[in-house]
């Protein structure tokens, strides 16, 4: 019988990690005083975008008393980073795909697996042949939401003072945790599937085909009304699902950490960090899954709008 020696390297690494985690509460907590700390305002500041006190503001144009200014805020900077990452990934993939005889690199393999899986299992069954032009839109949704969800799991890492002084706002958080971002993505899907439906079936034909062909006469108005409501509710559910999943995860993580400040006791520290570790692991899974779901449902709605029964 073989007697196995204990894996010394693994034990040393585990001991190091436990020591790091135990040393966390010794790090002094730079917090507000006991009277000045309000859990809900701290949570609110962490989760929402700092549009009221932005880092910078650029006036774009103004007509009379209507002024359009661009506010450089936390989510704006993060969204720019995410957009650059999406562009870089797609350019990289395109450049590698142009030369199919070269040995593929590992990163190229990862992107190819993603794109091939999404195409075969998700986009081609629901979009069909005439929907091939929407593969790129849905894959861009997937990459954008995936990158912004994953970047949102990085805790706020850099304090940047807003314009006009005041307390520094930390750069961090999920871009998709902003209702405006998810609403923008959902409205793109809404516009695409309605306009494509009107292109495919005719402007009147799209609205007429909302009611299926064989419904009896008395049920037609009810079905029509339900389908109209369904268009809006599907879009709203798409928007709110992504937003709520991201906000829910970040609220859970932040509340457990902010309990240390609320109860003014460092003993909560190690427990809070361990629980947050478990929640963050779940959040990684939720991040990838929500990106897949948004992309799949967008493709599904576009495919349903285009399909002639």
């Amino acid at each position: 019988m073989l007697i196995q020696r204990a894996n010394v390297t693994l034990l040393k690494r585990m001991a190091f990690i436990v020591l790091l985690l135990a040393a966390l509460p010794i790090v002094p907590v730079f917090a507000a005083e006991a009277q000045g700390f309000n859990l809900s305002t701290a949570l609110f500041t962490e989760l929402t975008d700092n549009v009221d006190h932005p880092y910078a503001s650029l006036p774009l144009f103004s007509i009379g008393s209507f002024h359009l200014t661009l506010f450089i805020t936390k989510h704006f900077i993060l969204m720019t980073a995410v957009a650059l990452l999406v562009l870089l990934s797609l350019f990289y993939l395109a450049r590698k795909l142009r030369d199919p005889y070269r040995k593929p690199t590992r990163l190229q393999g990862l992107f190819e697996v993603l794109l091939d899986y999404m195409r075969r299992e998700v986009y081609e069954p629901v979009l069909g042949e005439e929907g091939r032009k929407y593969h790129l839109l849905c894959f861009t949704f997937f990459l954008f939401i995936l990158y912004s969800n994953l970047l949102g799991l990085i805790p706020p890492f850099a304090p940047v003072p807003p314009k006009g002084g005041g307390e520094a706002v930390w750069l961090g958080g999920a871009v998709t945790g902003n209702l405006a971002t998810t609403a923008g993505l959902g409205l793109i899907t809404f516009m695409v599937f309605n306009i494509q439906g009107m292109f495919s079936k005719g402007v009147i034909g799209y609205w007429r085909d909302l009611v299926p062909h064989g419904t009896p006469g008395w049920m037609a108005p009810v079905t029509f009304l339900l389908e109209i409501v369904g268009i809006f509710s599907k879009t709203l559910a798409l928007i709110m699902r992504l937003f709520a999943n991201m906000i829910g995860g970040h609220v859970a993580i932040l509340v457990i950490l902010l309990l240390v400040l609320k109860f003014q006791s460092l003993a909560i520290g190690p427990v809070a960090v361990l629980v947050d570790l478990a929640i963050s692991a779940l959040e990684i899974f939720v991040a990838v899954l929500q990106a897949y779901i948004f992309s799949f449902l967008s493709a599904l709605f576009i495919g349903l709008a285009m399909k002639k029964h």
Partner: protein
Amino acid sequence: MDSQSLVALAQGITKLGAYIGACIGAGLAVLGVGMGLGRIGASALEGIARQPEALSKIQTNMLLAAVLVEGVGIIALVICILAIVM
């Protein structure tokens, strides 16, 4: 009672109502999600037990249905958080 403590009492009762409503709402939402996901999981497992070679297809569809049900529950939870915060 003078008007200032009356206003404070009214605000306190509003907050109490908001907290009670939010917590009951969150509990009911989680109840619904739990029942829904349980049924999805049970039928998925039954399908896998009947036909083990369809495992990946069943798993994909189970995850899809689970995310949709969970999405509705999380939307309700966000509304409850909104009731507490505002």
